[in-house]
């Protein structure tokens, strides 16, 4: 039955996480934006204790099994939690110790044994981070063009190549006992079919962080460049089959990770957008400006029109995101819907935050308020985990029934 009420469990956990955002994140938000490359150790320790063991993303087999036994809502719950954390601070949210996108890849493509081996250490001990390394200096959206190689040598895979823009890469590779999921080709002549993902444990010799990026926003989160030089990992650290299948199946499997992670990134965008929208609404109301929803067209001010437009854009993005997550929870394929949500949310949050800065005039531009920071933070959501344009391309292919060859 069509129902927009969130379950009691989700509402309760949202309230709790909101308090985390309000009390632990907002007070240090500005500080760790300004002190880029420094880590809020106390906050990270607290979050590790609060959330140890929980992974974002979805275990496909568990989803399928659960869907058969009754409604499940772990993906939707993740989206709601992430929105709340990002309402607190998106950079700090990204820096929280957890398996991250690397964990999502393990859940989506790993065997039961691999899930246990790589994710169980996140249940206790010192804080750990997981990360995912796909992008290379010469290729981003075109992940099939990546040049990092994995060559089998006896009982090892040997990795060589350079990865950039790896979120939490520094923490995952060198500053904790986490892991990095690395995408590499086992057979360049096979094109997409040769691309596989590999789990590289932290501190593995041959893996080295050579740069941490200076960024426009999400500065509390480290974005690393990682070089792999004859980096040896065990044979059974490959996610999925080592066989190079003909056709696109193997690559599709790898890309399926994004069906799980795109709604989560969209959810983060929603949180930043809501922070900016709520702040702007309250500031305007204090100044005596109230948005009149039922008023006649001819009497609406430009500000009211803009406000209504960004407010409904953000809500549209939220519902598209929840739908994509809900479909995963129900074991339905959501490739189209995940890309719709990501494309919409990335664009919406960019516009919402830019408009909110505009609404507040010179106050909006000032670093005294967090609004300008939210605008800087927001833009990354239009870029990472698939730019708006690559997601539009996926949507277009799906609605037209075209392969990547037919529509490139």
């Amino acid at each position, binding site marked *: 039955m*069509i129902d927009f009420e*969130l379950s009691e469990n989700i509402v309760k956990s949202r309230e709790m996480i909101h308090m985390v955002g309000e009390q632990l994140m907002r007070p240090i938000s500005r500080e760790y934006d300004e002190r880029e490359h420094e880590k809020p150790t106390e906050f990270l320790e607290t979050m590790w204790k609060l959330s140890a063991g929980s992974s974002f993303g979805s275990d496909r087999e568990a989803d399928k099994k659960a869907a058969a036994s009754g409604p499940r809502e772990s993906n939707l719950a993740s989206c709601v939690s992430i929105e709340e954390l990002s309402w607190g601070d998106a950079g700090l949210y990204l820096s929280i110790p957890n398996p991250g996108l690397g964990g999502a890849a393990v859940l989506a493509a790993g065997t039961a044994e691999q899930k246990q081996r790589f994710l169980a250490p996140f249940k206790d001990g010192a804080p750990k981070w997981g990360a995912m390394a796909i992008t290379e200096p010469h290729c981003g959206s075109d992940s099939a063009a990546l040049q990092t190689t994995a060559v089998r040598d006896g009982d090892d895979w040997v990795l060589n190549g350079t990865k950039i823009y790896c979120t939490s890469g520094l923490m995952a590779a060198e500053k904790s006992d986490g892991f990095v999921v690395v995408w590499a080709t086992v057979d360049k002549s096979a094109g997409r079919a040769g691309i596989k993902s590999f789990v590289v444990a932290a501190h593995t010799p041959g893996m080295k962080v050579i740069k941490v990026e200076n960024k426009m926003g999400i500065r509390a989160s480290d974005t690393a460049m990682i070089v792999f030089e004859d980096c040896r990992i065990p044979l059974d650290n490959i996610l999925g089959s080592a066989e190079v299948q003909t056709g696109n199946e193997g690559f599709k499997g790898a890309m399926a990770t994004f069906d799980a992670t795109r709604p989560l990134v969209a959810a983060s965008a929603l949180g930043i957008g809501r922070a900016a929208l709520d702040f702007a609404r309250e500031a305007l109301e204090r100044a005596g400006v109230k948005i009149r929803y039922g008023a*006649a067209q001819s009497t609406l001010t430009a500000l009211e029109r803009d406000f209504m437009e960004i407010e*409904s854009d953000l809500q549209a993005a939220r519902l598209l995101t929840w739908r994509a997550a*809900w479909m995963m929870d129900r074991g339905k394929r959501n490739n189209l819907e995940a890309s719709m949500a990501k494309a919409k949310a990335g664009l919406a949050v960019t516009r919402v935050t830019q408009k909110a800065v505009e609404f507040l005039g010179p106050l909006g531009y000032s670093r005294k308020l967090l609004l300008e920071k939210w605008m800087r933070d927001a833009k990354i959501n239009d870029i990472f985990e698939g730019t708006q344009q690559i997601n539009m391309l996926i949507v*277009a292919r799906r609605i*037209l029934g075209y392969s990547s060859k037919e529509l490139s």
Partner: protein
Amino acid sequence: MFDLEMTEDQKLIHDTVASFAKGEIRPIARDCDESGEIPAGLAEKGFELGLVHSAIPEEQGGFGETRSAVTGAIVAEELGWGDLAIALHLLTPRLLVYPLLEAGTPPQIAQVLPPFALGHQVATAAVVEPRFDFDTTRFTTTAAAKDGGFVLNGAKCFVPLADESQTILVVAQLGDEPAAFLVPRRANGVVIGEREKNMGVKALATYEVGLENVVVPASARIGDAAAIARILNRSRIALGALALGMGRAAFDYARDYAKERKAFGVAIAQKQAIAFILAEMAIEIDASRLLLWEAAWMLDQGKEATRECVLAKRYASNACLKITDNAVQVLGGHGYVRDHPVELWLRNARGFTSFEGMAIV
């Protein structure tokens, strides 16, 4: 618990109305637009689908089904996909029936509704006024209390089927608040003007209606200001859902055309310039539907939802205008000629910012 699955009943209603829209409405839409007429028998067929009497209580001869704004939005989307003018024509009885169900007293319901359960009856509502600054929070048509009844004065426009209707639901300003009244078509002072000539929805007969010292009894008043606010919210969902359906029609057509039409050796849909337009249409259609369903669901839950209804209608009608405009663009010159339906959808789409008061969900 969050869920986007229709109930079995809703699926059945959806499928029935969708196949009616495809089989009975779409094939005649262009002819109706050109001739300005809708075949007499179509409204009867619509009635047989239960479009009107399913929500009428059993005591008045209907099926007594729960009226749901979500189900109403599902029905309106499918009819809007068929054709906007025909959809509005078929649903006009609801313009009287639904506000009565929403806010009528038992005697008013008992007096007015039974004929609507027996067969197709024409009825209408007069809400919109002919001025650029038309405002649903302050009508210029006035109602004044007099001798235990009311006297109505003013001008209305875009009143569907006013000339054939027996009863018109008139919304007017009563002091500080809007109020609704049942006005017999033949009452003294009711002046039905010439049939209007509109840019779109040309198959729908709409009229200006003048009210010159029209006297109605106290019992003619339906509900209070709060009821009218609820009725206006239902109208927003209805119009938004019709816009959504028409936008989807334009998207379907443009998508299929773009896959057929070749340029530079490939289908034009294989060019990103066209493919991205189509992708955006698909996203905005789904976004509109979700916003409308959420607002409709809030109405069904009895929650205050003016903000959500206003935003959902604005969103859906803006999306529809952009989608239909882009559909014409995808077809290029072929979109501009009347051999294809997309120009009709664009003409229709512009109306949603002018239409109000269509409480047909």
